[in-house]
């Protein structure tokens, strides 16, 4: 079991408040990712769950039991650190079996569990080496092995892949997802890489400046971000934001741009200055006709996609993601259209006012 609940958790270092009003319910077996920009408090939140950091106020519950003041060693959690934090003075075998030895398991049982974990992770040939004799990816596997042998209530990962090269990162990402399927144990995973977040998570906690902005499934975050921050943070390239105003008849007038009639808005909130957000992949583009006329400043051609950075007069830079497109190049004129059903609208408080 591994249900983790945070109730009204606050954290301050001295006078500096770094996390506020954190209420999260993480179900048993769920894969939850904490994502957010650097310094937003992801690691601190994770460390409060493990007990490595004290909670200033509020409660942490594991399987219904209040562990707010329980020491890390008694919480039954396993953690994989960014630096792997393997014990350098003992072999891989002893590293993996370390927690079991502390728990006082019989040696035969430890050997058995270590063998199983090392088979899952492909570490059999490395068991007698010291950690420093391993590559980064291998060290990472050992750290994961050390976590899984203990059959913890939950696994906590703090940016475990950020020290690996890109190819290995993708591979380990897939391995972790498969591991989660196989073990069906709660996993909490901290990253600032939104691709990791989107691809791995059942649900994502988006943190910013010490507040939870949104806690939802990846698709929910993409389709229905609650505010401008989440909208801009999830998705790559970033969502475009255009200044706009509400018209008397409840439509949205993009400044120096088209008048949009968006059907799903909360009409009561369509007043005053607004922001229209549209994702680069949702903008339609053409050589000869559209709502906005602009010039392609930079074309980034990836083969699968072309990212067009379009300078539109009086509006600014708009990014367009053109899937498989080969016919638009730098310095060309391009016409852009904003499909109203794809537009997100944010009010003055940056909250999204679309109904769905």
């Amino acid at each position, binding site marked *: 079991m591994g249900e983790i609940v945070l109730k009204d958790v606050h954290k301050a270092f001295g006078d500096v408040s770094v996390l506020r009003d954190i209420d999260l319910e993480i179900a048993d077996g769920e894969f939850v990712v904490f994502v957010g920009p650097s310094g937003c408090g992801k690691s601190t939140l994770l460390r409060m769950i*493990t007990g*490595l950091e004290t909670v200033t106020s509020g409660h942490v519950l594991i399987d219904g039991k209040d562990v707010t003041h329980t*020491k*890390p*060693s*008694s*919480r039954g*959690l*396993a*953690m994989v*650190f*960014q*630096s792997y*934090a*393997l*014990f*350098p*003075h003992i072999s891989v075998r002893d590293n993996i079996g*370390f*927690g079991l030895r*502390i*728990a006082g398991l019989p040696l035969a049982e430890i050997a058995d569990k270590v063998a199983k974990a090392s088979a899952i992770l492909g570490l059999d040939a490395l068991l007698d080496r010291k950690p420093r004799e391993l590559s980064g990816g291998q060290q990472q596997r050992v750290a994961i092995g*050390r976590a899984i042998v*203990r059959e913890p209530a939950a696994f906590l990962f703090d940016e475990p892949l950020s020290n690996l090269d890109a190819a290995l990162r993708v591979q380990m990402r897939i391995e972790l997802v498969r591991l989660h399927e196989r073990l069906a144990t709660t996993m909490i995973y901290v990253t600032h890489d939104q691709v990791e977040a989107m691809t791995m998570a059942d649900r994502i906690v988006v943190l910013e400046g010490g507040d939870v902005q949104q806690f939802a499934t990846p698709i929910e975050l993409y389709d229905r971000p609650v505010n401008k921050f989440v909208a801009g943070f999830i998705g790559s390239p970033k969502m475009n934001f255009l200044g706009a105003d509400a018209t008397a008849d409840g439509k949205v007038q993009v400044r120096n741009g088209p008048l949009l009639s968006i059907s799903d808005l909360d009409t009561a909130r369509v007043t005053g200055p607004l922001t229209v957000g549209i994702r680069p992949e949702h903008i339609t583009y053409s050589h000869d006709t559209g709502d906005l006329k602009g010039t392609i400043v930079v074309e980034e051609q990836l083969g699968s996609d072309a990212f067009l950075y379009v300078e539109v007069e009086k509006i600014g830079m708009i990014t367009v993601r053109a899937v498989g497109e080969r016919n638009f190049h730098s310095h060309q004129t391009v016409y852009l259209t904003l499909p109203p059903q794809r537009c997100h609208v944010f009010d003055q408080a940056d909250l999204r006012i679309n109904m769905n």
Partner: protein
Amino acid sequence: MNRETKALPLVAAVFITFIFTAPIIWMVMAAFKTVVDIYAVPPVWVPDFTYLENFKVLLSDNWPFLLNSLIVTVGATVLSLALALPAAFGLVYFQFRSQNFLADWILSTRMMPPIAAAVPLYMVFNGFGMLDTIPALIIVYAGFNLPFAIWVAMSFFRNIPREIIEAARVEGCSWVQTFRLVALPLAKSGIATVATFVFIFAWNELLLALFLTTREARTFPVVISSFSTVTRTYWELISAATIIQILPPVIFTIIMQRHIVSGLTMGAVKH
């Protein structure tokens, strides 16, 4: 560089080294000379190294004091490590109010010159009836080295990546287990460094031993100093004794050297 400019530093180095080692060399020579040869003019440059009479005379009377020195030194080293290592670990990893103040205060006690403590210590041990006992010396030597030992040990514990300590705790270690199974093995070179310094201090200490011992518990340096009397200085015995006095620290340092070198330079470069 041509040959001359290369040779120059070498010559200088040899010369300076000679100046520093000359007294030791002279003393080694004297240890193998008869009293007559020691005072001979012109000097007897190369003694007969098979002449061991000085050592025989010295050790037949004084071997118990050599043993005292050994017991006191080993005892003080062990005791100060046993106290300093857990103290340093706690100061580095436990969070409590006035943590830094406590660490600074511990170090500040080292600012007092040992002689300032000599009289009070004399009175304290007199009160306990512990004058001229080996435990008294062990306690005093360990005590004098504690601040330094704690500070050095703290710097070694600080150099252990914090996440490794945290990993141990998440893996289920109590603080005692974290200390024993993770922190100590990783601070090995620190322990060697501290041990070496305490060992050398305790082995060579004279001043407090003069104050606190009279007969039974005298250490070897006290005995050596007693060879210089109002009426006569026994150069042949002093020389022989000094050679014996020098040997243990040299041997101990050679054994520990590998660790100490990595210890003294640890943290000097960023990994």
